[in-house]
């Protein structure tokens, strides 16, 4: 058999290259993913700033930007097609290259072996390959800004015919091809990572670490990985067909009778709806791929800072399973206005209402977990509570969009933009920050500055809600998304000035992240040295040194005796009992 027959007591690689660059150590790979996500996040964030600048001061002259984008900003004024590239790439980069990288690639790699008591992933080499496939994928995406025609401009959903006809928009030339290529590599990378996570969770748990004793974070990463593994391949299939429509004359998505200029295109018989179905079959589960790990992180941070077990542990796990199943059959709610049969729409609307139930159960469990706790308002806790509040607001908006009746009015307005930014923008961002502030000491052996962290939290919270709550109201007023400027639309005039405060708040939100970046690098060298278990938490990773050595556990891997939420167990001296402490005969282990 292939498996290791003797205990793999780790030999630490000594060369710089094997240790920090082409490392197979899950902790190094996790941090590589986090840093890559941070870099891509800066790029995608700057794109958002350009978008906001254009919306607040349409057609203003930004001559200094011409040097970076001679095509898109020629004469210092943003071109409409460049604006489309910006929104396309902002969405694509944020969803796949920032949030997926950080939550699954970053936290997934760093936490899974540490929290289940393993020495590394099941397939460390595959893990390294996953990261080093993600890098070229990122580079290809970034490079697409600098090819002829600029980056892809068909929206992050890449709907045909815009994405399928190279002449349709400048970004549909090379940019769209590179987009498909970058996404293909991303999916390959995700698949390698996801296989690793799933197999590691199932097979490499420490002695006594039953599935029910796994921290909720691990459960969410596990479920998100399975979801991603099953949902991404249909997008691969869709992208392959799109590539052939674009370059080899097939007609999967393109109907007959399409003109470009005065020229009739030769395609016939295809339907753009086919792409929409295949895309959203991935697109909707992907929302949960991103959302669930953020919620899992929050679920694990709450007990540490309330000093009590989380509320409704089992119900949360069942709800996660229910969300995973339901998330595969609700994709049609993105397509209510595509002309689908009202009966099919009804099916998707009922499915969407059904998925709000387990989501609401998780939300309620999060809130109830605060009840009666001795709350310690440290930065990770602030971000965790912030996540819950954004999940609540975003979830309420989702009820309106999940119903076909109200969605027909709200579809493709800023109400949608505001809603999805709360969910896959806010919940994930705040969850990520909660996790970073919480596990930073374990990753780098230093504490982040609390004072900077709290300022960062409040500025982010205020900036975020100002931007995206306001967008809900702009959407109710009828403001459509993806428009380059609203100067020529009379019905928008009563609201259009609101774009200025939204943009200013967006700048505040962006600037606040500089505080975090400074804190991140400054504390790495100057922060107070972290102890093994600075938060007095119970899960396995806090039993390893900060930062953990290669192989994580030294001579003996941990043995688990209890669930991860034993806070305030009667008859114990400390108010927390680590998972490795053997069960007291008088008390029932869970």
């Amino acid at each position, binding site marked *: *058999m*292939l*498996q*290791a*027959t*003797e205990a*793999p007591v*780790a*030999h630490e690689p000594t060369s710089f290259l094997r240790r920090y660059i082409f490392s*197979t150590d899950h902790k190094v790979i996790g941090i590589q993913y986090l840093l890559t996500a941070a870099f891509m996040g800066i790029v995608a964030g700057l794109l958002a700033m350009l978008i906001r600048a254009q919306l607040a001061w349409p057609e203003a002259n930004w001559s200094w930007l011409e040097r970076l984008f001679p095509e898109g900003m020629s004469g210092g004024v943003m071109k409409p097609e460049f604006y489309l590239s910006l929104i396309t790439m902002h969405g694509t980069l944020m969803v796949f290259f920032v949030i997926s990288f950080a939550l699954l690639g970053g936290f997934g790699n760093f936490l899974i072996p540490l929290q289940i*008591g*393993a*020495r*590394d*992933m*099941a*397939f*460390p*080499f*595959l893990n390294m390959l996953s990261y080093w496939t993600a890098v070229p994928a990122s580079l290809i995406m970034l490079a697409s800004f600098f090819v002829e025609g600029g980056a892809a401009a068909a929206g992050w959903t890449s709907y045909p015919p815009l994405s399928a006809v190279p002449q349709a928009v400048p970004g549909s030339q090379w940019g769209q091809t590179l987009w498909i290529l970058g996404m293909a590599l991303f999916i390959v990378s995700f*698949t390698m990572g*996801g*296989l690793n996570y*799933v*197999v590691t969770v199932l*097979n*490499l*748990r*420490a*002695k006594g670490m039953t599935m029910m004793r796994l921290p909720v974070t691990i459960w969410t990463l596990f479920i998100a990985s399975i979801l991603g*593994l*099953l*949902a*991404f*391949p*249909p*997008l*691969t*299939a*869709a992208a*392959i*067909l799109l590539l*052939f429509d674009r370059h*080899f*004359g*097939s*007609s*999967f998505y393109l109907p*007959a009778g399409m003109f470009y200029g005065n020229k009739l295109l030769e395609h*016939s*018989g*295809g*339907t753009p*709806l*086919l792409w929409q*179905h*295949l895309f959203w*079959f991935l697109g909707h589960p992907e929302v949960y791929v991103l959302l669930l790990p953020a919620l899992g992180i929050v679920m694990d941070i709450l007990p540490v800072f309330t000093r009590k077990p989380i509320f409704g542990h089992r119900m949360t796990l069942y709800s996660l399973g229910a969300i995973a199943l339901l998330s595969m059959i609700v994709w049609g709610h993105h397509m209510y206005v595509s002309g689908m049969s009202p009966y099919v729409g009804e099916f998707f609307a009922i499915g969407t209402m059904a998925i709000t139930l387990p989501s609401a159960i998780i939300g309620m469990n999060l809130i109830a977990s605060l009840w009666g706790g001795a709350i310690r308002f440290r930065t990770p806790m602030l971000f965790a509570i912030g996540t819950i509040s954004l999940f609540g607001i975003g979830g309420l908006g989702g009820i309106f969009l999940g119903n076909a009746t109200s969605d027909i009015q709200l579809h493709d307005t800023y109400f949608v933009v505001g809603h999805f930014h709360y969910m896959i923008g806010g919940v994930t961002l705040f969850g990520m920050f909660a996790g970073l502030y919480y596990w930073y000491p374990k990753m780098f052996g230093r504490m982040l500055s609390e004072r900077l962290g709290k300022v960062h939290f409040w500025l982010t919270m205020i900036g975020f809600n100002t931007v995206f709550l306001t967008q809900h109201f702009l959407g109710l007023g009828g403001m459509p998304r993806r428009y380059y400027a609203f100067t020529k639309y009379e019905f928008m005039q009563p609201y259009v000035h609101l774009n200025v405060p939204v943009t200013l708040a967006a700048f505040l939100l962006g600037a606040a992240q500089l505080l975090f970046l400074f804190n991140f690098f400054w504390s790495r060298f100057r922060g107070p040295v972290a102890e093994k278990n600075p938060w007095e938490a119970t899960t396995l990773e806090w039993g390893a040194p900060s930062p953990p050595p290669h192989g994580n556990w030294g001579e003996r*891997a941990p*043995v688990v005796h209890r669930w991860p939420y034993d806070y305030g167990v009667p008859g114990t001296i400390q108010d927390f009992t680590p998972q490795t402490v053997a069960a007291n005969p008088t008390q029932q282990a869970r």
Partner: protein
Amino acid sequence: MSHAQNQWIGFGDSEHTGERPVVDAHRLGLWFFLATVVMLFAGFTSAILVRRTSADWQAIPLLPLLRWNTLVLLASSVTFERVRTLARRSQRKQVRTWLAVTALLGVLFLAGQIGAWEQYRVLGLFLSSNPHSSFFYILSGVHGAHLAGGLLGLGYLLARPGRVGAVNLCATYWHFLGGLWLYLLVMLFVV
């Protein structure tokens, strides 16, 4: 097993669980990988189902060559079973011979597929001719790419014929691709 090999092949199963996991890590990983391939072709299948309802779908004929190719691929699965039996009895020399036969049949299948493309081309059925021919070229191509991956696995086994576990994994993958090809054939030409 040395550490260097661990780096490549993985740590296998947890050293401390006491009880062995139900399925070993590599087999589990393979199963999940096959699940992603199933989903990939499920995506293609739904595209076929949608696309073939349109008026411009003109069925292309099933070439006799494709029947021969199918037989060759099925034969390679039979020879792979022979490899497995021999590997279990650790008869390395014969394992090598039958691995080579299997790989040869695999190469023959791929060559036959390219031959089929050529025959369709001669018939005037190109990738862009109509949706049926588009699907045939693309799906046989994607299937062939996966089979080429399987051939790389066979190459690895030829270098290390003693690895019974790896032989079994590769056999599972190979049989899966045989079944997948049958499915595609039925999907494209029968149903």
